[in-house]
């Protein structure tokens, strides 16, 4: 069994003439949380969609636990898209149950138990029989997360999972993500907020389809040479460094 949950080599994705992902190589060890941090349009969502197999690379290779992304391996991944992506007429419980079923949880008793468990986990128990249209934005995010984790995947892709959540709920999400990684799951999380990124064990700063820096949050901050630097300073430092290098 490979120790890397994800291995990417020289990955490129072109959309027409536009290079959306530009020669990315990285490895993500199993049981870690890996953040993709960058502004809108940096290529974070495209990279996640390539990793889930929704998009096909223009060149380069991707391996998820030793295999290329395919429907056969899809059972082992959980995917939470940027927008909630739920069936609006169905209730919270019906949505989660549907995703549990298509991810292979066929045994009814076990499935119902797990569905109830994740509903409680995302604190939607009181709303479980309410249709998605009647939920607030934050509640929809929680229901969407529940759909992604109900089958307990070892590899989880979360595209901007905390957008629109209040600080308390955001903290709650991050506590849960930490529990998942300590239980052995690998999390790949995209974000454009520095606060979120600080929770990840390792980060990749992305800009214009490239990874401009990679390391733990403390390593990245330390690279600036300033003792009080935050992640925003670190990001700007690497952006400027890239511009200087490009001009040399």
């Amino acid at each position: 069994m490979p120790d890397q949950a994800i291995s990417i080599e020289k990955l490129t994705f072109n959309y027409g003439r536009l290079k959306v992902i530009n020669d990315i190589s990285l490895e993500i060890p199993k049981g870690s949380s890996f953040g993709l941090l960058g502004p809108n349009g940096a290529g974070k969502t495209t990279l996640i969609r390539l990793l889930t197999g929704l998009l096909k690379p223009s060149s380069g290779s991707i391996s998820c636990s030793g295999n290329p992304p395919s429907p056969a391996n899809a059972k082992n991944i959980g995917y939470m898209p940027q927008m909630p992506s739920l069936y609006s007429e169905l209730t919270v419980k019906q949505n989660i149950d549907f995703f549990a079923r298509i991810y292979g949880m066929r045994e009814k008793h076990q499935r119902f138990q797990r569905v109830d468990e994740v509903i409680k986990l995302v604190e939607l128990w009181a709303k479980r029989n309410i249709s998605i249209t009647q939920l607030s934005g934050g509640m929809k995010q929680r229901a969407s997360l529940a759909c992604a984790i109900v089958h307990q995947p070892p590899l989880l892709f979360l595209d901007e999972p905390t957008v629109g959540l209040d600080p308390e709920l955001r903290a709650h999400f991050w506590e849960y993500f930490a529990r998942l990684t300590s239980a052995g799951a690998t999390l790949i999380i995209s974000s454009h907020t520095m606060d979120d990124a600080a929770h990840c064990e390792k980060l990749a700063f992305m800009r214009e389809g490239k990874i401009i820096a990679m390391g733990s949050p403390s390593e990245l901050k330390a690279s600036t040479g300033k003792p009080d630097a935050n992640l925003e300073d670190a990001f700007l430092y690497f952006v400027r460094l890239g511009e200087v290098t490009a001009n040399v």
Partner: protein
Amino acid sequence: MYNMLTIAQRTITQLLRDPRTLALILIVPLVISSLIGYSMPSKDLLNSTLPAILAMLVLFFGFLLSGIAFLRERSQGTRERLMASPVSRQDILIGYLLGFLLFTMIQTLILFFFSIWVLKADFTGSLWQIIVFQILIGILAVCLGIFISAFAGNEFQMIQFIPLIIVPQIFVCGLLFPVDQMPIFLQWVSRFLPLTYGVDGLRAMMLQGKSLTNIGKDIGVLGAYAVGLMLLAGISLRRGHGA
């Protein structure tokens, strides 16, 4: 099979939980049938035009229902989520087909039985065989809706496909004017459009009392169209090409 049925069940549950849409699905065929029936100047005219009208309405309702519902799957992002899951393209397409077909069939049966029970339209031929043939038109309509939805970016565009895909078929299928009295090029166009065969088959059964075995060509063409459209819809759902 399990995933296919799960998707079909979800599609049905979704529509059942939307009372307004459900009411429209049930009421619209009744309103249309009443209008057609009571606007006909004579019963003979109703009897002779009913097969073509039924074929046209089944195609129209099935296309609209499945096209918009399948498009919504994409616009609300759930299709992307499905494509990232272990379900196959066949599971998605046939699951949807089964789900929509139920409602298309309900509409078909309403149209048919309202015409023969309330409007007292006459027909010859076997009742169950006529229903089976209408189910085939319904399958074609759902396949056409699913396929065309791949080309629409939103519900508004999907509606615009009605005058492009459905209306020309109504004009050249023989409902308004006999096909053999049309210009040659329109007769050729008519031969390539599936509604022509739906109308032909239903007319042969309801007016001439023919059975399914006598209309093999119509069944074959409609079936081939349905399979072809499903295969093309499958291409638009390929993994690795976005969702």
